[in-house]
């Protein structure tokens, strides 16, 4: 696996960040052990991970100072580096992310995409064996996305850096990585080469097809910069991201509200449907509602009793555009 790019692919909330933070030595696992080159990592040896890997966070954070000082921060902990050597390294790292001449700018004043590139440079300057990237291109514009993707590929090729990239974007996984690990609800469901995962049998889609509340359709960008996904003639789902074209989305059963009359709220998705199945699991009840497509909804037993819901009852489903996750 040395010198390869591996993606952790899964919807948001599936545990990608947690896994990366454990590998980065920032958190300890609640169960199980971490092994690094055949030796077990304990709470006292987290430094081994921290000294061999560095991480770029999804949300960039900066020291309130210049781009130069931010990128140079990690170099201060390396011994025997002269001022000139530090300055050269910072210059090279900024060149990699195509931000030459940005040294004196205030990091916090840059645009989101530029900030993420500075974050990447700040990690690259350390020349670590492992580079961990947590959704490095989420919420930034296409131009910055392509610069970041090019940089990732170039660093992997030229410096043989082993990269682990967390993403929910299957196209990015396909474009950048040799190996893919599918993560869902806190567990790695499947690992394999890119060909195995996205090839003929397409394990990725098979796994997601087993999930509830997965909807596929053609997405169009609305005037409000959300995506409207046309699932069928009766069902269009609005999502708080903008990606046009054929996509699949996922809504968690616990993110959907059930009501007997239409709710007036800020939530962008309200659908009328009919209950076609009720399953009780302890204090939790799973409803299957037909609202143009089958939705799984999770409510408490108490709600079921209080709302007096039965199979065949007419209900309204409400969920926010931001509860719609791209897969």
């Amino acid at each position: 696996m040395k010198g390869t790019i591996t993606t952790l692919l899964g919807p948001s909330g599936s545990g990608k960040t947690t896994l990366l933070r454990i590998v980065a030595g920032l958190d300890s696992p609640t169960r199980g052990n971490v092994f690094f080159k055949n030796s077990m990592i304990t709470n006292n040896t987290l430094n081994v991970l921290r000294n061999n890997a560095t991480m770029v966070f999804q949300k960039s954070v900066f020291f309130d100072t210049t781009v130069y000082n931010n990128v140079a921060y990690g170099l201060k902990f390396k011994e025997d580096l002269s001022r000139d050597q530090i300055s050269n390294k910072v210059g090279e790292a900024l060149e990699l992310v195509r931000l030459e001449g940005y040294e004196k700018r205030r990091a916090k004043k840059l645009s989101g995409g530029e900030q993420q590139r500075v974050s990447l440079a700040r990690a690259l300057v350390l020349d670590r064996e492992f580079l961990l990237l947590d959704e490095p291109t989420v919420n930034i514009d296409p131009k910055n996305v392509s610069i970041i993707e090019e940089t990732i590929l170039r660093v992997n090729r030229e410096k043989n850096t082993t990269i682990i990239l967390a993403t929910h974007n299957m196209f990015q996984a396909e474009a950048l990585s040799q190996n893919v690990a599918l993560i869902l609800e806190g567990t790695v469901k499947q690992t394999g080469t890119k060909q195995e995962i996205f090839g003929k049998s397409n394990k990725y889609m098979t796994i997601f097809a087993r999930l509830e509340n997965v909807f596929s359709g053609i997405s169009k960008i609305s005037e409000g910069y959300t995506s409207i996904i046309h699932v069928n003639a009766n069902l269009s789902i609005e999502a708080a991201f903008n990606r046009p074209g054929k996509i699949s989305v996922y809504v968690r059963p616990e993110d959907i509200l059930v009501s007997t009359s239409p709710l007036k709220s800020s939530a962008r998705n309200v659908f009328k449907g009919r209950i076609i199945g009720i399953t009780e699991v302890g204090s939790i009840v799973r409803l299957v509602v037909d609202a143009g497509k089958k939705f799984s909804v999770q409510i408490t037993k108490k709600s079921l009793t209080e709302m007096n819901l039965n199979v065949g009852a007419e209900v309204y489903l409400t969920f926010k555009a931001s509860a719609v996750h791209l897969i």
Partner: protein
Amino acid sequence: MTNPIVDGIIQAFQLLFSLDSTVYRIVFRSLYISGLAVVMATFWSLPIAAILGLKNFRAKRLVRGTFNAFIGFPTVVLGLMLFLLFSRSGPLGTFGLLFTPLMISIGQAILITPILVSFITSAIEAIDMDLRDLAMTLGSTEIQASIAILREASGGVILAVLAAFNRAFAELGVAMMVGGNIYGRTRLLTTAIALETNRGEIAFSIALGVILLAIVYTLNIATNYLRRH
């Protein structure tokens, strides 16, 4: 018949601009004593605030709440407590500190500790704690990461120090009770104003009052300026 207040103000400005040495000695003594108080209080408040702002422990809320509650501690009560502790027959009487300038500094330092601890803790808590993770993933130790956070909070620390100086400089109770308002030794701006007003020296009081206000006002402007930038 002239108005004593107008008279007082005129005389006050005469005193101010004649560079009366008694007045200026009092001003410099006040600045020195409160300055020393701030240095002492910052010395122990900074580590306390760092622990409160960066660490999580069970009694944290209780400790923070206590410091918050003591921000408005009545100065006279603190003065009385210190007086009893440090008087000849008190438990700390052997130090012979009562009615010395150092005693006033110590009293003021205790008075402003809650302000410093609370404000600096808030400043540290306002810093994005993701920075700590960032520092560690870039190779810093936990202590170095904490120092990085403290450095990010330095603006808030300066604000806290200014506010604390303001409180020490303008307070009367502690200076009066443990300083004794001794002429040429422990007489400060606030204690002098109290005394001279009682003695009917309105002009002198007003002159000192104007100086006190000017310094406090300047500090407040400086604080607000820093807060905006």
